[in-house]
């Protein structure tokens, strides 16, 4: 990707955004009736679908049950047709497992698991050309839809660093270019970080700026998700004939 200019001299990115601008986000809650909670999110071309079951009794091995809190079980799979080359297995490969683990860590930090001891919450996420950020945002909406109590929204966003400028919300092209990439999941109200992950090397002097860009973007995501949730609640209450 030698010739690709990720940030032009005029300050535009490849797709026409400026450095701090997010991709277009569209989201919907309650897309599946049979699940306890579900949500669909589109961030640019990345589409993620999340479903939540629970809290319910532990399924399978009872030994996994935790005495003081609920078990959060996360599974991630990506559609076989979602990436440049067609994948053989939709889930169960290393990358999906890693993503599942990360999601689990994130949501254990956000869900008030101690309210549901000895029970299990299942989050299944499916994403096209998935990124961690889209998955988290979709899952947040799905968990909210399921009515599971949380400390706060979990909003995630990625950020990169090109030519001394931090770029918020990387697109696929920008990710593929191979620069440093930082994924951040934030609890916006308290400003606590649920998960922070970074690929490639970045000088520590720049870390703060990239982190700030990601956090700002996550707060922007929060405003959007909040609006989606309110819209959903309004619709639901109309349906209930309030």
């Amino acid at each position, binding site marked *: 990707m*030698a010739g690709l200019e990720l940030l032009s*001299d005029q300050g535009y990115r490849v797709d026409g955004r400026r450095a701090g*601008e997010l991709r277009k986000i569209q989201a919907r809650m309650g897309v599946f009736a049979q699940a306890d909670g579900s949500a669909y999110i589109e961030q640019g071309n990345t589409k993620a679908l999340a479903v939540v079951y629970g809290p319910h009794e532990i399924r399978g091995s009872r030994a996994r049950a935790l005495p003081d809190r609920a078990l959060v079980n996360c599974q991630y799979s990506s559609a076989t047709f979602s990436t440049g080359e067609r994948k053989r297995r939709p889930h169960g490969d290393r990358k999906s497992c890693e993503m599942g683990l990360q999601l689990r860590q994130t949501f254990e930090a956000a869900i008030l698991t101690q309210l549901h001891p000895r029970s299990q919450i299942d989050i299944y996420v499916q994403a096209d050309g998935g990124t961690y950020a889209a998955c988290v945002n979709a899952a947040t909406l799905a968990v909210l839809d399921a009515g599971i109590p949380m400390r706060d929204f979990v909003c995630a966003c990625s950020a990169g660093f090109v030519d001394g400028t931090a770029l918020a919300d990387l697109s696929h092209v920008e990710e593929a270019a191979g620069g440093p990439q930082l994924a951040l999941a934030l609890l916006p109200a308290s400003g606590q970080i649920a998960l922070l992950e970074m690929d490639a090397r970045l000088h520590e002097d720049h870390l703060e700026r990239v982190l700030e860009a990601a956090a700002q973007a996550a707060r922007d995501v929060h405003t959007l998700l909040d609006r989606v949730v309110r819209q959903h609640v309004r619709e639901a209450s109309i349906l209930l004939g309030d």
Partner: protein
Amino acid sequence: MLQKREKVLLLRTFQGRTLRIVREHYLRPCVPCHSPLCPQPAACSHDGKLLSSDVTHYVIPDWKVVQDYLEILEFPELKGIIFMQTACQAVQHQRGRRQYNKLRNLLKDARHDCILFANEFQQCCYLPRERGESMEKWQTRSIYNAAVWYYHHCQDRMPIVMVTEDEEAIQQYGSETEGVFVITFKNYLDNFWPDLKAAHELCDSILQSRRERENESQESHGKEYPEHLPLEVLEAGIKSGRYIQGILNVNKHRAQIEAFVRLQGASSKDSDLVSDILIHGMKARNRSIHGDVVVVELLPKNEWKGRTVALCENDCDDKASGESPSEPMPTGRVVGILQKNWRDYVVTFPSKEEVQSQGKNAQKILVTPWDYRIPKIRISTQQAETLQDFRVVVRIDSWESTSVYPNGHFVRVLGRIGDLEGEIATILVENSISVIPFSEAQMCEMPVNTPESPWKVSPEEEQKRKDLRKSHLVFSIDPKGCEDVDDTLSVRTLNNGNLELGVHIADVTHFVAPNSYIDIEARTRATTYYLADRRYDMLPSVLSADLCSLLGGVDRYAVSIMWELDKASYEIKKVWYGRTIIRSAYKLFYEAAQELLDGNLSVVDDIPEFKDLDEKSRQAKLEELVWAIGKLTDIARHVRAKRDGCGALELEGVEVCVQLDDKKNIHDLIPKQPLEVHETVAECMILANHWVAKKIWESFPHQALLRQHPPPHQEFFSELRECAKAKGFFIDTRSNKTLADSLDNANDPHDPIVNRLLRSMATQAMSNALYFSTGSCAEEEFHHYGLALDKYTHFTSPIRRYSDIVVHRLLMAAISKDKKMEIKGNLFSNKDLEELCRHINNRNQLCFLQAAQHSQKQSTELFQCMYFKDKDPATEERCISDGVIYSIRTNGVLLFIPRFGIKGAAYLKNKDGLVISCGPDSCSEWKPGSLQRFQNKITSTTTDGESVTFHLFDHVTVRISIQASRCHSDTIRLEIISNKPYKIPNTELIHQSSPLLKSELVKEVTKSVEEAQLAQEVKVNIIQEEYQEYRQTKGRSLYTLLEEIRDLALLDVSNNYGI
């Protein structure tokens, strides 16, 4: 944030080979239009440059025009150019990074009136590509649509001309919108710029070469060269270690056969190759040109070749290769070129006879570049006959695998062959130096200082600065007649008995605001260029020779560093940095300062400041000054000793000064005399530079500009060690300390030149000193090897070096940071600084541009040649001189001539195969015979049994003559005429060794030159002094090492040449 997201999401699909990629594309209502006519400047939020408002029309080149005629669009006369993003992207994709960067720099350059309009991100300008529409059609349509929008955006107030090469587009759009005209580029030039002759010529030449290329591609030749591999293969190959990446360096003396690839950064670390890779022959070089970044594949070991050790003239082709080459070294062939570093080349057309012999197609002509390392270039022109006697600039367009020579086109004429102006212009072009006079806009920023409105110290500045005018005795020591004095010194005793040493540097940054026009210009020039008889200033003369020059007796702004030193041990107790106002009391020149130091007070009459004083105050002032110079020397000795303790190197340089006689002919070449006071001043400057480096690094650990000098590679020292062994010395090269010590010990009491030669060899082994940004390098790499300092920078010559200006700004920012004040203006970030460092290094140094230094060397050679040209070698006594052998080759020896500072080759075997022999009277003759080369001697045996042996460091007598060349610069030729040292006739001896006579000579010459000056307006004497000061030695890397010590560290070990 939120509002900005109100964009329509559009999916744009590219039909790839097998793969369909969907990319997002965001549009926005407001894209900066950079036009002063913009109706809603707030919404467009312009930052950066605007188009100027005084143009009659805007011109929008379409994608094809931008690709093909960018050189013409670069003309500063063409104004109001709007580059559409679509066109720029087409350049990026189809013409590669080099051309695109050229375009980017054009857009960044504040002096060019052109802007980029991001039409593809504008809501109304963006047109999706339709099904089945070709890329070219879509690009043209987009650009036209954007042009129409732009016209309406400016409320129809400015007509727009879109230039295109597409006839269909002209038909289709030509009369569609009123106010937006669509015409061809040729048409545009004819109608709007009928007077711009240069542009027309360039346009014709580009058109013709393109036509040629088209014709050629239709004819199918046999392939002369293998095709280059595609980029992906190359990159993968480099990663896997199969191929090696490096910069191609053609051997100047065997341009046809030998080239070397110097390994670059990453790849050299992985592989265990230490030396360069040899590329043997033009076939293996595969169309790469000197300076290109190439990818090389190593040949199997049994095909490895050695480099030729025999001397070889440029014009003789493969003759020398029959002789035994040295040990085989890694040999490879070029498989691809990563980056072409083609530039403008100076060429000469073949003379009339040659043209005729070239035969059938008179339009295609092979021209010979001035630089030996560049292959002949084929250009098509009808002007061949008229251009015969001129030096001409051409540009290479392409080099197809089917063609033996590259294709190029003619750009402009420089001057007649052999004419001094033309030759100097040649040197400038060859080193990519442009010397346009300062523009009006730049001069407008300059302060005024005329007799009517003299420049004064402003009261605000007076308050902010420390006033040293009354309290300190400030003086400068410079070469005689120097105009740009940028450093002054002071020393005094404080009340507590301690000493205070002050270095005061001209405050250039006060006058040159960051990113002003003059700043941009200075950054591009990066340094003042000193050629043998002229100089090209970095800053306009109102600054360099007047307001920033710390002349005697006038108030000037300065940036000062003052150290408090212990009275006895000279330990540094305290240091103060800051802005000051000074008034230099004396403007001394070196010779006078030295006389004062030696206690010879008779020179007082030469110092103008003392002239109008009465005897008593004169005596008092003189004592004060002598005390100050003495103290300064003391301190400098002390500091120097400390540095020597850490292993500072003292290296050898040969300084020659050109003397011109009254007719501006070169009168004599005189070696320069070193003085202790030179060293004193240099030491103070090194001290100042060192402390500033420490300061700015502490304040800005990641964005300070420092200067490093990496330790040399040990293997480069092998030649030095061998040579020293021949004389029975041992050179320990393990560290700079041991090297310095063993060089001091390697002194032959009978022959001082041995030591000088050893030192100059040591210098050649050194790496280059470089500017760098501290953010890009680990701290242990900051070390300066030559000066033995842990941190070093350039601070003391802001008038002639841009790096010093940057350092000044950093120092000022560091001071305000200490005072907790806000830092004014933006400092360079690490990345920008790195880029700047690279630029300055290129300008200064021995990367392939080598501009400043190389041009100096070439111009000196030019003068040397002109000096010897007029002399008849047979009769003129000066053309015969003493020479020392410093290296041995299979068919000759390399000689050093201390008298003139010339290094060159002399053959022991001539072209007819005859070898040299010396009879009993030691005069040499050519006789049939053979040569035998040993480690440190060479023996020539004639068929009749006589033999003569030359050892390393033998003295011989040589005759110097000139070998004229039509296409290239003239070269100096040496011929051994006797194997005995040259006996200098008595008259000359007196003439040479008597300093009195010499200084008279200098005076005489200077006086006569002053007369010539009136007529010429070129201040030759000053320049000559400058030249003497900055003129560097012939050793290549010597300059870079020694430039920090500037004029002074170039110490001659012996003053008695020729004895």
